[in-house]
């Protein structure tokens, strides 16, 4: 526990600590991040190690599946075209792999909030039998036997011997570096570019109908809500209630960000909608009433077909090409081939 004590001391020393520029930057006007950076200070060597780990199938039991298998940079770290997550030996999970971005602002993780800290998030897919099917003991054993990782851990943490703590913190560092704030919407907000008429109409509709849950600038409140989807009879997924055991949490799922939504299809916790038009049709006419239905959806959302087209035009302005094609987030081929 020396580490925690040091962390608390560091927190005091760094009062007024602003997250440094090149690797983690708080975009202007955004709220303070919730991740406790004082315990895991942004560091390029740690981000690099985390990036290599993220793309390495050695994290799975049979060396087949990496984090990036279901969180591809080209789909804003979601899994395009796959409704449910895939794992080792063609196993299929029960939920849609979410996009990864702006995680420093996210307080809890998973569709049901089962994970309380970004550091601990990776444990779930690493150990789930329908995902990577491994264990932290096995992963750390493989990393300790690798010359590449001995070097990367030495450079990142001053100790070549991999530990669970350092592995998880490095993965956090890479995930924290995935900031998306360079979309057309962001440029419009900064006064660098203007919306066209259709996008502007869509933005007004968004502010009227969507923004109370998908609040700017992160396009989520990070709360849980029942958005009126009927329960899938095979998956029987009741969301947050399975973790909290509170009936009031029945059918409540994490409100996802809308940033980069054009890249992250299919949609919803079980990937049931392939297209944004289906999502809007659901909100405008498919809401299933229920005891836990979000208050915001109790009255019917009136959207004409023109409104839907305009809304989609606005949602397209949330696409951040710079983020999706950023080589710094991509497969670290310069390091992986030396293995």
């Amino acid at each position: 526990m020396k580490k925690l004590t040091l962390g608390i001391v560091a927190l005091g020393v760094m009062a007024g600590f602003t997250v440094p520029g090149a690797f983690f930057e708080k975009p202007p006007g955004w709220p303070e991040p919730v991740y406790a950076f004082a315990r895991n200070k942004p560091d390029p060597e740690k981000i690099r190690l985390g990036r290599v780990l993220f793309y390495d199938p050695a994290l799975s039991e049979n060396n087949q599946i990496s984090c990036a298998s279901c969180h591809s940079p080209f789909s804003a770290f979601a899994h395009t075209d796959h409704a449910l997550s895939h794992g080792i030996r063609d196993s299929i999970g029960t939920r849609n792999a979410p996009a990864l971005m702006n995680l420093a602002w996210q307080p809890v993780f998973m569709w049901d909030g089962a994970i309380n800290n970004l550091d601990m998030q990776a444990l779930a897919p690493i150990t789930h039998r329908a995902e990577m099917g491994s264990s932290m003991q096995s992963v750390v054993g493989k990393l300790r036997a690798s010359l590449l990782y001995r070097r990367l851990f030495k450079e990142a943490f001053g100790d070549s011997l991999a530990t669970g703590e350092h592995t998880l913190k490095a993965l956090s560092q890479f995930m924290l570096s995935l900031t998306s704030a360079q979309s057309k919407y962001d440029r419009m907000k900064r006064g660098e570019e203007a919306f066209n008429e259709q996008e502007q109409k869509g933005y007004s509709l968004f502010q009227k109908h969507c923004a109370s849950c998908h609040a700017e600038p992160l396009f989520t409140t990070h709360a849980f809500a029942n958005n009126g989807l009927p329960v899938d009879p095979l998956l029987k997924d009741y969301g947050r209630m399975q973790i909290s055991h509170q009936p009031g949490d029945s059918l409540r799922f994490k409100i996802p960000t809308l940033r980069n939504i054009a890249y992250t299809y299919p949609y919803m916790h079980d990937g049931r909608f392939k297209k944004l038009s289906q999502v809007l049709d659901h909100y405008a006419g498919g809401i299933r009433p229920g005891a836990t239905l979000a208050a915001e959806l109790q009255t019917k959302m009136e959207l004409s077909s023109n409104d839907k087209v305009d809304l989609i035009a606005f949602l397209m302005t949330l696409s951040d090409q710079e983020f999706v094609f950023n080589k710094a987030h991509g497969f670290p081929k310069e390091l992986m081939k030396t293995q």
Partner: protein
Amino acid sequence: MHKVAALAQHKEVMLSFRPVAHGKAVVLNDSFYVKGHERIVVETLRFYISGIRLLQSDSLVWQESGSYHLYDLEEAKGIALRVPASVAYNHIRFYIGIDSLTNVSGAMGGELDPVKGMYWTWQSGYINFKAEGRSSASSHPKKEFQLHLGGYESPHNALRQITLSVEPQSDIEVYFDLQQFLETAELAKRSHLMSPGPEAVKLSVMASRCFKTKQQ
């Protein structure tokens, strides 16, 4: 010279945990009986001990800083407490489990590293106490039992504080009466428990009552 003088003013108090059944030490993979007829083989017994304090009657006289220890029957070793030589104590107080602040603070090292296998992966949180093995009363096809006790969120916080009398100013032996625990746990009714909730709290209370010293 200063440092040597400072060191001289401290002494080591050894704190040892000894699982017992029928008054005898529990040996990994050996069998014993509970309720007269239920045959038990213990394959894993691990628990966290945290927040160790020494008391003189009701007054706190010493507390360990960074106090997190993992007991493992497979490689049981004592905990050396470095206490001021002059301190007088007749009680020990500690937690079985990990506090809620540590549970929400991200990746930890040392005894708290998730590689120790005492951290849930599907839902965040430390496993405070883990007992696994076989019981002839288990309804599991292979007669296994697995009790993983934990949970830090109210109202199902499984962390338990224990205060025990000890021999003044001496090394401390704490016995864990595994026979009593498994009799009250009733494996015939519930051979597997691996999530937080009211059952985990109930079993954690039962387990906490099975820590004893000879001075009680």
